[in-house]
């Protein structure tokens, strides 16, 4: 909200701050009214003065230029070259002298123009930011006094503050309101605006019928006759323009002025257009049409609070007036409205139609029900002064249930305890009086009963007074202590602990953590996931329906994510296009379900390319095995050592049907590891192998953390034996390992594949694998015969699956 310091100065003496507005800004900010910017007009017009052309001659070397001798003060005359045509000798003009700075950071310097010295420039209205367009330089009337600073002569020496007012301080949304706050902070007195006028003999000729006192607790109105609608006087225009409000005509300007001055929005109706001389405050009718004063046609819903005359709606209460009843050049008699509408009703209407007005803003933040009367009088005062009307002898005031100001009981010790420092009863009482409270009762112990001021609707409980005292006394007095721990700390959240654990394990596995938005594009998500049931075969439990946002930021972020895939693939493309041909990233976070809006913790990994360097030349190694080993390392590290890989009949459409495997944990499928489908890789013009893994972490979360259980270690040395088998084309190693492990329990301590061969020496599709097994007894040593038996068992079980000993 913009505040003019010159205007503010009319209600509270801030002359000391006009020269140092930063100090006032600091004071307000430290009291909770944050000043976002300070605009100092005189700074903008520094070194710009009024001058008189005492001599005008042709520039010796340029046809289109003139050389003027301009008097800027007493005997000081400056030579200035000017390209305009509308000036003559004797004109009073605006001179930007050396050192002046014009908008656009244009600095005036001493210069030579075509060989002739020029010590400044004559300015146009446009260049002075006084109008949008101008032809030629600005010529002032003869009365202007030479040498005066232009800013002062034209009232442009104002300072404008831009305040960010929190929703609880609606009382500060006006110049008078802010003056009242400054008076409280600086212990100064406040000056009330003049509101007296002469009333005529005529009576208010509009009858107010308040049908909805819930949404409109108070409605005041008064007629003014025979006004002369016309332009506003310069001072009024200037006040409005200083805070960026356009001047329309004197009557409308006065209603706006009163709103900016007192915070009470007002409206003026042309009495002639109010049919049946009746103003009724009631709800709209469903499907009824209403045209706002700016010409927009609305279809009402039956829920808006409207101001109606005998036949039709004439204004949307508190939001905007109707085109059918506003003040125009031909208006003679007016009916002035000064009402109190509740924030809820105004907020609803203004939100429904997206109409934001200064009036709606103030009402929806809460106006002062007691201000209606002063505002109405003030408007009558100004109208009589400016537009010369005759004010009706009486007024209408519908206020069926006068609001009760809250009474607050508080003890000074409570205030002191909450603020953490000593507070004396006298200081406290003084402070509360300054914020506008009335002392209803007090006792010697420091107990008070206060009545809060009507304009502070935000104050209704003891802690509000704690804040008020703390605020005006100064938050800098708050000490620094620590709260006493009165009980033992509680346990950490399991999900938090698991996430941190997974993050450090993934870092060990060489993966970088990505964080994407929790929402994504519905179209893209659908295209990438395809048939969700294919993913769910692998135990991922993805939702088959989107959780949609009612008001997405854009269509690329219109649903909650059901998988990390869309985000991670986007990251891959960004990285790949910037030349990063090798990457290991993962995301750990929620995915969403439509049902009950459930959120499941998932972990997804995406890897592309192989590092190739001096020691690692196997660039051909399929990336999917890297992902698989990261998953295994992670599960082992988290203590989930009993997992299995299970080949499945189908694969999700995004994954390679021949390179996809399920992860089984404690007998349950919980995830998938696979290569990306070559189609996707080609379509996205990527020349690297890409693999993906996704694990539903819910089961892991539910049994986390797993405590490591010590198993007794054997003192006996390991015995190693190797075996090689030939696998048939449709056979897989997993089955063989599973069988061998089963039969060699408990002697087999580990089994490792150390070679894989496919080629000339074997039939097409066959492969040879070499296995290294390690055996260990708890005590004693193996005899040759025992080892022989173990090997035979291994061979037999492998052969059962169709493999041949090599």
């Amino acid at each position: 909200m913009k505040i003019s310091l010159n205007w503010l100065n009319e209600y509270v003496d801030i002359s000391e701050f006009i020269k140092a507005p930063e100090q006032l800004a600091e004071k307000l900010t430290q009291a909770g009214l944050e000043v976002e910017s300070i605009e100092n007009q005189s700074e903008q017009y520094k070194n710009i003065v009024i001058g008189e052309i005492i001599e005008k001659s042709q520039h010796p070397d340029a046809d289109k230029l003139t050389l003027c001798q301009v008097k800027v003060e007493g005997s000081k005359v400056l030579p200035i070259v000017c390209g305009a045509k509308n000036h003559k000798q004797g004109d009073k003009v605006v001179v930007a002298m050396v050192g002046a700075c014009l908008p656009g950071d244009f600095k005036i310097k001493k210069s030579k123009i075509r060989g002739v010295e020029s010590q400044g420039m004559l300015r146009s209205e446009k260049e002075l930011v006084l109008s949008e367009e101008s032809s030629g330089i600005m010529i002032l009337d003869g009365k202007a006094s030479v040498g005066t600073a232009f800013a002062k002569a034209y009232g442009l020496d104002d300072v404008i503050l831009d305040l960010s007012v929190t929703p609880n301080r609606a009382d500060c949304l006006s110049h008078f309101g802010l003056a009242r706050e400054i008076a409280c902070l600086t212990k100064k007195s406040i000056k009330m605006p003049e509101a007296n006028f002469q009333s005529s003999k005529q009576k208010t000729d509009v009858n107010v019928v308040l049908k909805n006192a819930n949404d409109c607790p108070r409605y005041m109105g008064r007629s003014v006759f025979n006004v002369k609608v016309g332009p506003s006087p310069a001072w009024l225009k200037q006040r409005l323009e200083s805070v960026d409000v356009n001047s329309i005509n004197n009557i409308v300007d006065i209603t706006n002025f009163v709103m900016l001055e007192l915070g009470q929005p007002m409206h003026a109706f042309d009495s002639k257009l109010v049919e049946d001389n009746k103003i009724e405050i009631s709800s709209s009718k469903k499907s009824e049409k209403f045209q706002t004063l700016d010409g927009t046609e609305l279809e009402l819903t039956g829920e808006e609070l409207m101001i109606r005359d005998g036949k039709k709606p004439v204004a949307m209460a508190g939001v905007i007036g109707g085109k059918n009843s506003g003040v125009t050049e031909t208006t003679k008699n007016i009916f002035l409205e000064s009402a109190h509408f509740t924030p809820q009703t105004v907020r609803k209407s203004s939100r429904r139609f997206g109409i934001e007005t200064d009036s709606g803003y103030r009402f929806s933040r809460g106006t002062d029900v007691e201000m209606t009367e002063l505002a109405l009088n003030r408007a009558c005062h100004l109208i009589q002064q400016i537009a010369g009307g005759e004010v009706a002898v009486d007024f209408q005031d519908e206020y069926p249930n006068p609001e009760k100001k809250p009474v607050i009981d508080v003890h000074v010790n409570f205030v002191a305890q909450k603020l953490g420092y000593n507070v004396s009863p006298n200081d406290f009482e003084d402070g509360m009086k300054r914020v506008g409270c009335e002392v209803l009762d007090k006792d010697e112990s420091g107990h008070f009963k206060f009545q809060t001021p009507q304009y502070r609707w935000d104050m209704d409980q003891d802690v509000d007074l704690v804040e008020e005292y703390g605020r005006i006394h100064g938050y800098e007095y708050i000490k620094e202590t620590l709260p006493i721990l009165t009980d033992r700390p509680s346990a950490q959240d399991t999900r938090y602990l698991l996430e941190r654990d997974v993050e450090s394990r993934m870092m060990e596995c060489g993966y970088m953590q990505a964080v994407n938005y929790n929402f994504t594009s519905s179209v893209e998500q659908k295209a990438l996931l395809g048939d969700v049931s294919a993913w769910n075969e692998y135990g991922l439990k993805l939702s088959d329906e989107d959780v949609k946002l009612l008001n997405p930021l854009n269509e690329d972020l219109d649903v909650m994510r059901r998988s990390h895939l869309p985000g991670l693939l986007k990251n891959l493309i960004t990285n790949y296009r910037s030349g990063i041909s090798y990457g290991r990233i993962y995301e750990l976070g929620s995915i969403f379900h439509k049902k009950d809006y459930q959120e499941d913790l998932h972990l997804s990994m995406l890897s592309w390319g192989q590092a190739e360097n001096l020691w690692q030349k196997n660039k051909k190694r399929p990336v999917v095995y890297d992902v698989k080993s990261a998953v295994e390392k992670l599960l082992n590290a988290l203590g989930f050592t009993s997992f299995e890989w299970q080949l499945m009949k189908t694969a999700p459409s995004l994954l390679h049907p021949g390179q996809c495997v399920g992860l089984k944990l404690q007998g349950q499928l919980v995830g998938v590891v696979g290569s990306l489908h070559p189609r996707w890789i080609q379509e996205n013009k990527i020349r690297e192998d890409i693999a993906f893994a996704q694990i539903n972490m819910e089961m892991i979360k539910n049994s986390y953390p797993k405590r490591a259980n010590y198993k007794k270690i054997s003192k006996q040395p390991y015995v190693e034996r190797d075996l090689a088998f030939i696998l048939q084309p449709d056979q897989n190693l997993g089955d063989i390992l599973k069988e061998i492990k089963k039969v060699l329990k408990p002697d087999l301590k580990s089994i490792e594949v150390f070679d894989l061969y496919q080629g000339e020496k074997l039939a097409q599709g066959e492969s040879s694998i070499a296995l290294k097994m390690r055996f260990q007894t708890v005590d004693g040593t193996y005899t040759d015969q025992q080892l022989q038996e173990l090997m035979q068992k291994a061979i037999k079980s492998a052969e059962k699956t169709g493999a041949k000993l090599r």
Partner: protein
Amino acid sequence: MKQKIDELLSQANEKIKMVADTKALYDLKVFFLGKQGEVTALMKELGKLPKEERPEWGQKINALKKQISELIDNQHKELELKELNQQIESEKLDLTLPGPQIEQGSRHPLSKVTEEIVEILSRIGFSVRSGPMIEKDWYNFEALNIPKDHPARDMQDTFYITEDHVLRTHTSPIQIHTMENEKPPIRILAPGSVFRCDSDISHSPNFYQIEALVVDQKVSMADLKGTISYFVKEFFGEEIKTRFRPSFFPFTEPSAEVDCSCPICKGKGCRTCKDTGWVEIGGSGLVNPKVFDYVKIDSKQWQGYAFGFGIERMAMIKYGIDDIRLFNENHIDFLKQFQ
């Protein structure tokens, strides 16, 4: 006999010194001292001598054996050293070549900062709680004293899922869940993802917050400021100061914005603090008794404070990151900087 002994000794002296490798030396050892060796043969001749001479010559042959043995050992040591030196010379490596790469992962700066904040505050008894991102209106607004159509709703641009479900606009609903489910005293931290309809260089529509809640018998603004000040010093540095400014949050009363002296310029003025020397880091206040009423905690018996920070903002200040969008682009050159 004497002559033979002398001959063998001079022969050994000569041959042993000339040997060039340990293999040839071993052959010499066999030649002199082996079962069929010269010295052994000499020993066998001892029997031919008169009985009384045998001990004398026996001793002399033993001395010869010892001498040759020493010669061989010394030569062996010398040769070993020579061979080791040769091996060392031949095994010379260019250690300016790179080692095999150990793939280094990383942790997202948002996780890193969250963990750091949790670690600092865990030390004074705070424990983490979590909550859902899709919240009922009641948890996100009403129970936090933000009724429907209240002007305070304008403070946060909300994403709606249904009329009654929103994407949480702050982590404060976790306070409500905790106060509903647990009995005071309470001392918790709630980190999490939050949402606002806003997107530019300094606003993300989906960003991270962390907030703290204490509920106990007596809790003051000084306790609040002391806790934040402790945190700020641990997180940004010992010399960083904390300042409160009055503000408004519907769920706290009194409320305060929290500023800290600019960690970048140490308060001298820079771009980050817009030359003010202070940066705004979060909001705080004493729990509004109205919030206790909503969760049915007796506000006569219990008091509380709450404060919250934007995690992106903390990371931006701490690491000097100047564009919030970097956090979600996940560029590897960005990610790898945080480990």
